[in-house]
């Protein structure tokens, strides 16, 4: 089903993957397990012959979520809850919900109470990452996840299946990194929207099939340099709606690096295949980049952004702020100051899941890039 997709198909799939996932589940008879961001080891879920799907909001209207989470809750959390409560809940046999902040902690409880007949478990990511206890805890949580899934399904995890799952996921990430490299050097070959659609779909469909599509797409790409592109680094957690990438594409802005949880951070720290698989998955947690809720090293974000900016020779930093993300909102004023002091041009893009009008984003982005170039684009 996902073996022979072209780029256009991938973009359409990224927009609304659920009809396709639903069809796939019917065809294969396999169960679908949803997770929210971040850091759930999807390899473990896949190794149990389940389809792990990262839930990244819905563009359909909010109906039920507001009665559970007020309007000052993170829009991604409300959107995810709405997706499960109103639109796609029946597709999922279970959920593995990571807790990384106050909102996600409550979201897990609300989710569990609203789906009493489904498998719902929390993944309690450590909210500190620089001490030995964090590593101990990540491993404990991975083992607990394995036990929980095993208990639900009535079977033990096959170590060979886990190794194969890790290999398959690593392969997916390797291909996506290759795409990123092409995108950096040949912005005319692949648009921002197409690239981030591939990233998103990779987190939502069976990689055994999708990797084949990715390889074929890569082989068929025409390496076009394109002209007048402005290279930027995108910083944040997620970027939605996907039409934001259309704006960047229209302005000939090329994202050459990012720190998104649904972007580069997803690709970082491929688990090694030549040792204990659980240790390798635990190690991966600490090889990933900055994620505001779990890192207490307050300068790590800035150092990473600066490094990425320099390495990619980008012209500016675009910070994607999700409305009501408390974690970002405490970090942002100081991060802005640090970036400004470094002389790096920075544009803050305020967005919200369920946003329908992007005219303000377009106007502000146009103004920023015009000023960056010292004139009209």
């Amino acid at each position, binding site marked *: 089903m996902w073996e022979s997709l072209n780029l256009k198909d991938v973009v359409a799939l990224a927009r609304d993957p659920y009809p396709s996932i639903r069809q796939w589940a019917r065809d294969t008879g396999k169960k679908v397990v949803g997770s929210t961001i971040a850091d759930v080891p999807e390899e473990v879920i896949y190794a149990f012959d389940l389809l792990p799907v990262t839930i990244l909001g819905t563009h359909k209207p909010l109906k039920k979520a507001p009665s559970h989470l007020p309007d000052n809750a993170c829009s991604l959390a409300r959107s995810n809850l709405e997706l499960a409560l109103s639109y796609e809940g029946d597709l999922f046999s279970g959920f593995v919900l990571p807790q990384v902040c106050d909102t996600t902690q409550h979201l897990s409880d609300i989710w569990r109470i609203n789906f009493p007949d489904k498998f719902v478990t929390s993944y*309690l990511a450590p*909210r500190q990452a620089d001490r030995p206890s964090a590593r101990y805890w990540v491993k404990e949580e991975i083992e607990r996840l394995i036990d929980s899934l095993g208990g639900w399904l009535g079977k033990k995890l096959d170590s060979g299946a886990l190794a194969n799952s890790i290999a398959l996921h690593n392969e997916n990430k390797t291909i996506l990194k290759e795409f990123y490299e092409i995108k950096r050097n040949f912005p005319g070959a692949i648009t921002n929207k197409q690239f981030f659609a591939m990233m998103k779909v990779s987190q939502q469909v069976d990689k055994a099939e999708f990797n084949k599509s990715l390889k074929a797409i890569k082989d068929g790409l025409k390496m076009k340099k394109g002209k007048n592109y402005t290279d930027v680094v995108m910083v944040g957690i997620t970027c939605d709606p996907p039409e934001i990438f259309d704006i960047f594409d229209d302005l000939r802005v090329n994202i050459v690096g990012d720190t998104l949880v649904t972007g580069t951070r997803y690709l970082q720290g491929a688990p090694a295949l030549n040792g204990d698989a659980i240790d390798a998955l635990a190690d991966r947690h600490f090889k990933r980049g900055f994620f505001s809720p779990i890192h207490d090293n307050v300068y790590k974000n800035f150092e990473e952004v600066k490094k990425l900016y320099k390495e990619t020779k980008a012209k500016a930093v675009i910070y994607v702020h999700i409305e009501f993300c408390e974690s970002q909102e405490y970090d942002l*004023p100081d991060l802005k100051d640090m970036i400004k002091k470094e002389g790096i041009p920075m544009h803050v893009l305020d967005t919200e899941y369920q946003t329908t009008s992007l005219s303000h984003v377009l106007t502000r982005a146009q103004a920023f890039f015009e000023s960056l170039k010292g004139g009209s684009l």
Partner: protein
Amino acid sequence: MNDKLTSKQLSKKITDEYMEDAFHAHDNNKLVGYTTAISPVEIFVAHDIVPIYPENHAVANLTAKKGVELCSVVEGMGYTSHLCAYARSDLGYRKTGVTVTRGIPDPDLFLACNAQCFTLTKWFQVLARRGDLPVFVFDTPEHILDQKARKEIVKYCVLQLKELISFLEKVTKRKFDYDRLKEVMKYSAASSILYKKFLDMAQYKPSPISIFDALIGMAIAVYRRGTQECVDYYQTLCNEIQAKVDQGIGVLPKDQEKYRLYWENLPVWFKFSDHAKLLGSYGGVILTSLYVHAWSFEFDLNKDPLETLAENYVNRFSNSTIEDRADMAMDLFKKYSMNGMIMFMNRSCKAVSFAVPTLKEVLTKRTGIPALVFESDMGDQRFYAESQVRTRIEAYFETLDRLGLAQKTAAA
């Protein structure tokens, strides 16, 4: 000498001495550690680090209606208006120096325990960046329902407490004294028992205390637990309240106490006394909340101190599942014979408030009592609609009257 002082006088004396000690900490070769109100401060006390709670200072300013002035300054610095009013007013204080107290001493280090909330961790990180100071995050995963997982969570927390001790030894260049910790734990355990006894006196009819007394009374438990004076204070307070009970003195006279109410969330600090008067005029007394019980620890002195600390700090209401929070609230409903509930959706406190809609559903179903839900902010007056809140309170009591719930107690 303390025997002669009233609890109010004793509270003032303890607080004055504590702040004096804090302001002269460096003169006495001590460090000042900022920490969260729910954190294993016993470790600080045992290591002679003076704990300072920016939340308490924020409460003083917010109660004195300084919220708008201080928060506005911070919003001008790029922080959004929907962040915690404690954090915003504190950052405003740092910027302007405006305070209704003498202020608080600057920190040398931070201990953020996320059993209370994640906001404090982020707030402390902002403060730490200003002085390039060390922050220790005591990470307490949610006290989930899985019993096996709970044991693992405690192990993880014990590991972190050992890391905290190493961190403090490194910062202070002094060896940690475990015997001293055992002594501190004895005081903490004793004062917690007395504090809980004080809160539980709201069981009496008429209740000798309201939640407003509890909110004032809890201060010493927050910032002086782990000391002999804290034990003395609660003993004095319990004796005083018991004397009221013996004389049948209630917040309202017995024949006027119609509604014994549960409050969910922190208070609206700047409306503290107004709410007490308004509710009282309808025969309502708010008796308790899970919030004031957050410092009712049950330390087991027969266990390793680090283990009992981990167990107690991880299972606070603010770190519990909504199911457990509902059970905790139900226990209070039964124990205190409550017949009404006010559920406050506090824009400042996401950690507590995002559970409120679900909790309200569960509690109204289990008690058969309707709930009054209102949204506002604990410290930022711009989010408080006076007439709307007043109207809702009036309508709520009318509903309770119509349902004939006066002086009825909650169903099981």
